[in-house]
Every structure is written in C-alpha cells, then in structure tokens.
C-alpha cells in the first residue's frame, strides 16, 4: 500500500473516494479559493483603517503589518481608527467645529427597518406557508404562482405607482411605510421557502399529534415549528441580507429621518465637492458589514442545515 503513494497524494491530494476527511492539499486549495473570494472584503476593511492620505497612494499600501518582514516597508501602512470616528462626527466646513453626521440615526434606521420587516414577514409568511402546505385551497398552485410574480417585476418598474400610492396615504418618509413595503417584498420569498420546509415534514407525526388530542394550533406550534427552526433561521438571514442591502426603495421612499445606511452612504459620497473620501466610505461599509455578519455567525449551524434541507436523507 504505502509504496504506491503518488506525488499528488504525498502533497495531500488524496484520491476522491468520498470517504473521510480531505487531505492537507485539498484543504489548502479550498483555503486559497476562499481567500480570493474574501479579498474585496479585506480590501475594504484595510481601507477603513488607513490614514486618509494613503487611500490612493502609489505604490498601494496593502497591509497593516510587515507580516514578520515578509512585506517591504513601502507597502505597509500604520492602522488608525480615526475614520470610524469621522463616520459619526466630522468637520464639514473648513475651519469649523466637528458636526454630527447623522449616521448613528441611519444605522439605527437600517437595523430597525430590516429586522422589524423581516421578522414581520417571517411571522406572516410562515403561517401562510403552513396554510398553503397543509390546507391547500382550490387552485393552490395558482395562488402560489401569483405570489411569486410579485418578485418577477424589477423594482424600478413598480416604484412609480408605489411612490404615488404612498403619497396618497401619507406613508412616504415614515417608518411604517418602508417597513410595510419591505415586509411585502420579503413575503413572497418567505412563503415559498417556508412552504418547501413544511412540505418535507412527515405527515404521520402530525396525524399522531392529532390523535393524541392536539388541536391544529398545538400541532403547528409544538410539532411543526420546532422541526423547521433551521428553515426559519435560513429564511431570516436571506431576508435580512436582501433587506439590509436594498437601495432603490429606500432612496425613493425614505425621508430625512428614516434614511437607511445605503442611501446615506450614497449621499456621503456625492456631497461635499472635495472628491470622494474613500477611507470614510470604507469605514461606513465596514461598520455596515458587522450586524449581518454577527447574525449569520450566530445562526451558522442552523443555516447549514437550512440550505441543505431535503438533500440529505434524515
């Protein structure tokens, strides 16, 4: 056996037998690919901790440390956290005192609007999905298709009637307006996703619960819901990312007090007339990454089960 090991295998590239842990070679290869994908994010994070003057320097500075002498000094910058401070408060007019930029409010808005609308969509959507899955109507598939069509039109197509309607009912610029819009926007996705999770559950278990004396509500809360926690987590995270990044609706429907971070960021770039402050922008983006990163990180175990649901025999 041992004599037959090829060079590739010595390097850790085991023949794919589909069994057991990958060798070091494969693991390293995967790490390199993952690093390439991560590069833009790393670029932004490094940009955020650079002194403003080095943002567009030639040659570019690429690392905050010399990595034990590996990187020549000319490519190294000394990290600073000043940019994060200027996100919230900075000097706006030459010679003036630092002013509040309003980004504390915008971050609060983003978090409030995204989380409330996604949670609302999750509650309504999960109930609707259970209904579609367990108590099908006549023409069930048609209704589901109609729900799906709400996601087929590009946002730019529907935005004008939405703006007009919001004006009439005085919803534009309010929290309620943007939250309702995002909830509707997330519902289609939530219903379809949660329905597929409910469809996968064993009906016998629910029959058993009924025979054991459970009402429909108890079957839903005590038996079905605990089985689709992974699905709830996955749906929540996907919905959150979609809503968190949404720009067009927020741009046209939010007011000065309900502005979300993507919209405010756009305005921070285009205003001022002193050219784009890249390090400031990178600092906003880095801060903007953190909430979604944390949520995804804490739900990662559920996510893995959520996205592979139904593909693995239980």
């Amino acid at each position, binding site marked *: 056996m041992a004599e037959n090991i090829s060079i590739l295998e010595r390097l850790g590239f085991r023949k794919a037998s589909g069994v057991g842990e990958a060798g070091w070679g494969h693991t390293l290869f995967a790490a390199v690919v993952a690093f390439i994908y991560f590069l833009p994010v790393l670029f932004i994070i490094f940009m955020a901790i650079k002194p403003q003057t080095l943002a567009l320097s030639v040659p570019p500075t690429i690392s905050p440390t010399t990595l034990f002498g590996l990187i020549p000094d000319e490519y190294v910058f000394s990290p600073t956290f000043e940019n994060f401070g200027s996100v919230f408060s900075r000097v706006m007019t030459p010679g003036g005192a630092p002013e509040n930029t309003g980004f504390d409010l915008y971050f609060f808005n983003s978090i409030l609007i995204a989380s409330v609308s996604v949670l609302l969509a999750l509650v309504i959507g999960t109930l609707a999905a259970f209904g579609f899955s367990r108590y099908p109507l006549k023409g069930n598939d048609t209704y589901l298709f109609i729900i799906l069509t709400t996601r087929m039109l590009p946002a730019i197509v529907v935005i004008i009637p939405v703006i007009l309607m919001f004006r009439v009912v005085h919803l534009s610029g309010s929290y309620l307006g943007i939250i309702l819009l995002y909830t509707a926007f997330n519902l289609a996705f939530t219903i379809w996703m949660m329905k597929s999770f409910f469809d996968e559950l064993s009906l016998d278990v629910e029959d058993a619960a009924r025979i054991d*004396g459970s009402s429909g509500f108890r079957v839903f809360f005590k038996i079905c819901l605990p*089985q689709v926690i992974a699905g709830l987590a996955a749906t929540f995270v996907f919905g959150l990312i979609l809503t968190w990044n949404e720009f067009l609706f927020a741009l046209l429907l939010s007011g000065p007090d309900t502005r979300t971070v993507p919209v405010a960021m756009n305005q921070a770039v285009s205003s001022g007339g002193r050219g784009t402050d890249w390090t400031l922008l990178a600092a906003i983006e880095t801060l903007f990454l953190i909430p979604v990163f944390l949520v995804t990180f804490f739900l990662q175990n559920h996510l893995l089960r959520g996205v592979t649901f139904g593909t693995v025999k239980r």
Partner: protein
Amino acid sequence: MSTIEIKKATKRFGDFVAVRDADLSVGAGEVVCLLGPSGCGKTTTLRMIAGLERTTSGDIIIAGQRMNELPPEKRDIAMVFQFYALYPALTVGENIAMPLHYEKLSKSEIDSRVMNVAKIMHLTDVLDRMPGHIAEGEKQRLAVARAIVRDPNCFLFDEPLSRLDVELRHSMRGQIKEVLQGLSKATVIVTHDQLEALTMAHRIAIMKDGVIEQVGTPHEVFAKPINVFVASFIGTPQMNLLEVDLGQVEGDVAMMSIAGSPVKVPVDPAVRGLKPGKVTIGVRPRAFAPSQDATPDTIGAVAELIEPMGAETLIHARAANGGDIRMVVPREKKIKVGEALHLLPETGQIHVFGDDGKAVRS
C-alpha cells in the same frame, strides 16, 4: 364500553374505491387484525376509524357513539404508526407525556404516569434522549408507550412491527400481545404479515381490493377459508390449488380426477350440489400423506425440488399432468429428487371451490 363498529364504510379517492362497504365489529378486549396484500385498503380502513380519513359513506361507531364527523383529536383513541411518527423535537419522556396534555393532570401525576409506562416498555434509561438518538427497537417501544399512557376508547396499530428485524419482531410481538391482554380494549391491528395476524389476533379480517373477504378466528380462516383468495393467502407454504375433474358424488364421497390420477375422496355433502366438470380444489401442503406404494386413490407425482426447512422438508412435486404440488413432510421422511410419490390427501382436508371461487360447504 370500549368497542369499535364499522358499518358499510366506503372510501373513495376520486374514481378509485379504496374501501367498499366494510363491515366489522370489534368487542371490548378483542384484538382484530386487518390482513391483506399491500394496497388492499386495510390502512385506509384504520385511518377511517382514527378520523384521519373521512368516510365517503357508512358509519364509524366507537364506544357506542357515531364518530363520522368528529376530528381525530376528539375521538379518544390511541394509534401506533408504521413509521412510529415520534415527535422529533421532544424527548422520549415528553413524547410519552404528549397525549396526557388534555387531561389536566398535575406535573407529578404526569411524571408518575410516564414513569409507569416507561417501566412497562423498558424505556426508563432513555427518557431524556431525543427520538433520533435511540435504537430502532426503542423507537417501536416508545410508539407503543405513547399509545398506552392514556386510557383511550380503543387502540389502532398500523403495521407496528414491519420496520423491525426478525428477532426483534418476535420479541415485540409477544410484548405487544401481553400489553394488550392487560388493557382489555378494542384493538385493530393492520398487518400484511399473516404470522403476525395469526399469533396476535382473536379474529382476523382478510381484505382484498377494498373488500373484507372473511372475518373469523385464526383457526376459522385457516381451516375454513371462504374463497380461493383467503385459502391461498393464509398459510405457509401456500395451499395447493388444483383444477380437477369432478365426477360422481355419492353421499360424502366424490370421484375426481386430480392431476391425472383418479381418486375417490371424502368431501363436504354440499359438493353434491355441484355439476360434474371442472372445479378447483385446495389442499394444504401439510395435508398429504406420501405413501411408497401405488395404492388406489393416490395422486401420482415425481419429487422435483427439495427444500429442507429445519423441522420439516418442503417438496415440490410434478404431477402426471404437469401440475405443481407443494408438500411438507417431517424431517425424518427421506425423499430423493426424482423419486416417484403417491400422495394421499387426508380426510376432510380437501376444500372444494365453485366457479365463483367460493368454498362449497354446508
């Protein structure tokens, strides 16, 4: 009183009739098995009793009360599912306690009831584990434990042993029978395994294509099958069904030509009513006495295949007219392949079936 009565119950799915005019009554303390090949409607019948399927027509009466319109949660029954249907998000103990939810018991009383049942079903060691992490036999016992924790009107079992391996199946069969004896409730067990039905049931209802063909004690359905289907379905090895020429019937002795051999056999007096001609007879493989000599009234055949089964030996013999006859003889009886046999059907062991497949009996 814990009884179940089904009256002319019919279940249609679109054009397909899953169960047709099923009549069955199960007394208190009685165990009835619904037995039949897959797709014969036995599980549908059980689900109608449970309220998981609505009857298209006919009545379901449990404990003297018509239950057609009641949902399953109001019928006060307990059911064990084929795939156990354990609650995956609850521990073993919580699974057992689940049916007690509506009885408004105190926490300590629930605990003692759960403990009590767990002891009977040998589950005390795994009460805190999740159903996904216990052995197959434990899952089965948990499914039964959950059913017996309450004091329901009746018990329903859907293929309760089909997922267990042979050894476990035998021990569970005994355990379930023992538990049921102590409860004296009306019980319906669905199975496709005749041995399970024969060993566990007081009475067996044999179904085919949605129709209950015969209801009787294990002895009755074995000894007096009502038609060709029941005759061939019950008993292993299968009953020999032979097409014979019926000749003169005098009193209770008939002349027939079985597989080319003219034989004079005692039959039921009702056979006199049949016209001479082709009829089907059934003879169980264990109802032959092979004799060495070509005595009169024996069927000539040649041993073709010999399968030792332990205590007995199964012999496939080829009759003079090419018909296949299965025969079981004691292990001591040594028969070689190619040996000429002379088979003598035992008195009273010949079942005669008319043109319509029904047994001819007085």
